[in-house]
């Protein structure tokens, strides 16, 4: 490789210089492939990529092996005999407590928690952000500051009071209660996100809509929302991954039959009875992480665009 690289540069050098010797350098400067800069750059990137990809590789490989093969101890070697049994077991048969229907129960619980929480929190926070950005009212800055402080209070401080509140209104242990908790805790950071985005949109657009006679909701729904797809995607990704991966609220605010997937995964992996089935554990972990992973892959580009839009124009 080094030889080819040097050859190429030399060849290019001869071509570029010979006919223009009198005129001096002209056109683009030749860029050697194997410069110190490139080696540093690609070397670092390769190491970083390996660092993140290796555990995933081990997990996938292990989940496709049978237990006898795992006991042989070569965790990096590919499976000699591919089996999907651990996946089936993790999804439909693994036992947690009294239930032996695998992660499927937790999956559907998580879906029933995540979908309404994401929709409700984004709907409320976007209106909040829009009102704080465009309809400044007396005390709106103070209100915003209080909301932002909310983002810095550690969750642990709030857990016990919230347990009492939910118990008093009769929602403790239900999925509805957890949805409410997730929606409230998403509010500070999402409101900040939406407010900063709406502030970055041209104020004259808002003025023009007011002159055109549009009211609070008409401006929001017909002018602002159609311009804000990137920031809605960012908010959705933040919320889906945050709520799906949540463990603390899930374990505190639900009962065993309404446990979200993360809590159930923990119970499967940490069960102390019987043999440790590493392949089932790996399969269960991948299954649990699949939803955020898919969300990232599908909307990654929009995510970057939204983050950039919020940051640069502000």
């Amino acid at each position: 490789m080094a030889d080819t690289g040097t050859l190429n540069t030399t060849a290019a050098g001869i071509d570029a210089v010979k006919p223009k010797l009198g005129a001096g350098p002209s056109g683009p400067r030749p860029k050697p492939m194997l410069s110190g800069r490139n080696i540093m750059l690609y070397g670092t990137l390769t190491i970083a990529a390996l660092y993140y990809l290796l555990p995933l590789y081990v997990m996938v490989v292990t989940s496709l092996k049978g237990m006898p093969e795992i006991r042989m101890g070569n965790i990096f070697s590919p499976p000699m005999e591919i089996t999907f049994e651990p996946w089936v077991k993790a999804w439909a048969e693994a036992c947690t407590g009294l239930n032996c229907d695998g992660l499927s129960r937790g999956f559907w619980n998580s879906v029933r928690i995540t979908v309404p929480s994401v929709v409700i929190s984004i709907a409320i926070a976007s209106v909040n952000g829009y009102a704080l950005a465009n309809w400044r009212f007396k005390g709106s800055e103070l209100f915003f500051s209080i909301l932002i402080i909310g983002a810095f209070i550690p969750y642990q401080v709030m857990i016990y009071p919230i347990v009492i509140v939910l118990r008093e209104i009769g929602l403790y242990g239900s999925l509805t209660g957890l949805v409410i908790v997730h929606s409230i805790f998403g509010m500070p950071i999402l409101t900040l996100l939406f407010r900063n985005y709406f502030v970055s949109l041209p104020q004259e657009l808002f003025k023009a809509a007011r002159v055109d006679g549009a009211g609070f909701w008409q401006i929001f729904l017909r002018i602002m929302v159609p311009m804000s797809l990137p920031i809605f995607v960012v908010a959705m990704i933040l919320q889906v991954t945050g709520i799906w991966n949540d463990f603390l609220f899930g374990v505190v605010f639900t009962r065993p039959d309404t446990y979200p997937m993360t809590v159930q995964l923990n119970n499967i992996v940490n069960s102390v009875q019987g043999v440790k089935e590493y392949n089932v554990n790996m399969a269960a972990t991948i299954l649990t992480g699949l939803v955020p992973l898919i969300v990232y892959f599908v909307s990654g580009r929009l995510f970057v665009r939204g983050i950039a839009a919020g940051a640069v124009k502000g």
Partner: protein
Amino acid sequence: MNTSVSIKDLSLNFGAVSVLKDLNLDINDGEFLVLLGSSGCGKSTLLNCIAGLLDASEGQIYIKGKNVTWEEPKDRGIGMVFQSYALYPQMTVEKNLSFGLKVAKIPQAEIDKRVARASEILQIQPLLKRKPAELSGGQRQRVAIGRALVRDVDVFLFDEPLSNLDAKLRSELRVEIKRLHQSLKNTMIYVTHDQIEALTLADRIAIMKSGIIQQLADPTTIYNKPRNLFVAGFIGSPSMNFLHGELTNAGGKTAFVSNGVTFSLDGYQTEQVLQPGRKVVLGVRPEHIKVNENIGAEVHEATVDIEEPMGADNLLWLKHAGHTMSVRIAGSRRFAPGTPVKLGFDMSLASLFDAASEDRI
């Protein structure tokens, strides 16, 4: 003549900062009024107050004899055009034009009629199905004007509509706005910092500085008889020549003396008594100084320092008794640097200001 927009004792404060102070302004029906000033003088703030996008701290605003001080923008009978066009990016040109009418629940047939009329006036029919991103700057601003046009309003408000365009398009659209005003005969209030736009478009210009109107008059008066030093220096490019000196008595007549050079004030019209010894500033526009030809009785000596040929005009920077002076002459007349020249001043077109109060004498 009927009053279209009337502003009475308007004040506006942002916290402790006072942007407009006790402002009074009456705008006639069908008048083209330009609010002119440098940035931060409160001209855009005043326009936003008229539009209802900012609440006044004190005072009242009347449009067509109706007190609209507390009315929403849509109920004031105004249409507004913004500097950044402010077109709704996700809507086609047609939807942009009809959005306000749809919000007002006007029947579709009427909407179509008005959109057709506006797009014909502004010649944007071929663009109706396009989105703002697919238009050039000039086309976008036409659409923005169209959006005000379809609203069928009494008063048009323009907030620096041409500032985002390049020089050539700016002069083209300037002519079109003037033509539009001549055919529609609506009241138009136009905010700009560009004095050429102000002088060419306006029936009357209101020159503003720190929230106060310095002079409200037609362009000719503003140009030839500026009320104070600020107006005199703001209008005109290159700026008026200012000579600091005092009044004196020369041969039984009042004259002006600066750096030991005496200027006769024959032909200068004022109702004030010109008291010898008063400290004053003499202002003469570059084109009101004669070079070598038609000088008149009084002759001043000067030398050419720098010559700036601009095609139609030729701008000379002269040294005259310690002053640097700019003189505008015809582009065909050329002078090499260092050439001695003879100057003549036309005092009937000059301005005298009191050095202390800076007001016109």
